[in-house]
């Protein structure tokens, strides 16, 4: 059932002395002398939460790979594991999961000793919808979405992420935010840190 709410008509006192106006004016004048809550964007930037779906990156081999999945995939494809390089095992699952598969351009190469590694990994961000299916599909926690959201470029070429760029984003990410918890709750001290520019007064957590 729809609940009907009617506005109370103004009384004559309210009409004569414009009390409704006065009420509104008192609210606005109180707001006018309070502190502004704006982030001055190009000069100040908020850090997005860790789950933010921004530009993509490749995490690099640093000993924190998901085991035993990583070992299994390396065994199956005979992948050359090199610390500080991409974890990619060229399984193509990201391309399979993608709703616009042609945006991926992935190739592997065979080294003289018979092992393999990824040689080409281009992502054309002009076609990407940032749905994150490829990230879910990645079995070795290699492909991920970072907090980089300023993605504008001067040419169409800028929007193609190649392997070097992806690895650079990944290395940067692992240095900055790998330690953070994936989810941030309202009573979390991480949240305090994220929005520190506004210096918010969040409620104290009782434990």
């Amino acid at each position, binding site marked *: 059932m729809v609940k009907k709410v009617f506005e109370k008509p103004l009384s004559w006192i309210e009409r004569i002395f*414009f009390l409704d106006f006065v009420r509104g004016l008192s609210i*606005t*004048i109180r707001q006018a002398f*309070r502190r502004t*809550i*704006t982030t*001055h964007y190009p000069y100040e930037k908020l850090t997005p939460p860790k789950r933010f779906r921004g530009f993509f990156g490749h995490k690099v081999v640093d000993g924190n790979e998901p085991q035993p999945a990583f070992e299994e995939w390396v065994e199956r494809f005979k992948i050359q594991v090199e610390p500080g390089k991409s974890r990619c095992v060229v399984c193509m699952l990201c391309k399979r999961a993608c709703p616009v598969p042609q945006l991926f351009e992935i190739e592997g190469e065979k080294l003289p000793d018979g092992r393999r590694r990824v040689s080409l990994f281009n992502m054309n961000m002009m076609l990407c919808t940032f749905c994150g299916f490829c990230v879910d599909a990645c079995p070795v926690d290699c492909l991920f979405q970072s907090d980089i959201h300023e993605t504008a470029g001067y040419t169409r070429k800028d929007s193609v992420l190649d392997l070097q760029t992806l690895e650079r984003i990944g290395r940067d990410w692992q240095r900055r935010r790998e330690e953070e918890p994936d989810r941030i709750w309202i009573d979390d001290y991480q949240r305090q840190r994220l929005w520190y520019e506004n210096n918010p007064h969040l409620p104290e957590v009782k434990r």
Partner: protein
Amino acid sequence: MEGLIVWLIITLVKILVILGIVLGVGAYLTLVERKVAAHIQRRPGPMVVGWHGLLQPLADGIKLLTKEDLFPRYGNRFLYNLALVMALVPATLVFAVVPFGPEFKVFGVEVKPILTDVNVGLLLVFALGSMAVFAIALAGWASNSKYALIGSMRKAGIVVSYEVVITFAVMGPIILAGTLSTYEIVQKQIEQELWYIWLQPLAFVVYMFALLAETGRVPFDVQEAEAELVTGFTVEYGGMKFGLFPLVEWYIEVLSLSAIAVVLFLGGWSPINIPFLGFVDPLFFLGPLSPFVWFILKVSLLFLFVLWLHWTLPRYRIDQITETAWKVMLPLTFVNLVLTAVIAPVLWG
């Protein structure tokens, strides 16, 4: 001959000073408006150009001047440009009869800080005020755009109704002062030791409503109505031509009508008034400058009040606006007029 030359020089200086003040202040009021609006919405407003955005009006001016001069297809170019002139000239001309302070002496010459102290000053003000409707109607018509035409027709409807109301509202102070000259009205208030707002609160409220309606401020900004009409009659104007309309409507007209309100109801350049007892001047230490400071203070406070209203209230519908004008405001001013006509002879014989 010498007297004529002195008079000419004085008048020229007055014109230059008034034009400079009005146009310069008009430009900077854009910044004031943006700052007030921003702080009411808890934003800081323009902050980048200059200290707290102090050079923002200059940046805006340069930007508007360097823009392309667009003209709508099938528009009427003559009327399109004429509307600009019709908007700017009457609005600035009103300042010719605004008295800024009492008479003073410079190099042995008596100078009245008012351009022309004509004895029908107020008549001139409202004659020029009703010219504004032509500018807006022409702008809407010449643009050959439906949005612009709707906006200008709405504005014409409002101005026609509120022109009547405002004229009857100022009748009260005119009866009390017994003159139409703006300078004399202030003098009378100082002689009678009475701001006319104490005797005419009703007329003052009605005047403020009419001010908001004539200048197209919220709650009567149906001719702009960003949400429905994409800023109404200015929609087909570009560059500085676009910048001129809000400058005239929102700043120069509000300023001139606030100045007239201060002259009529708030005692012009006189300090704070206690009815029938006298004047209290907390700014006495400024000496001969204090009347000018009082006048500027009053006008700016009134202007800030209009801004405050603008960024608080929602918008009325056009039928509600005209209904208020004809059914509420006009009868109220009639009542006020009759009461004043009865009371004034009793008070001052």
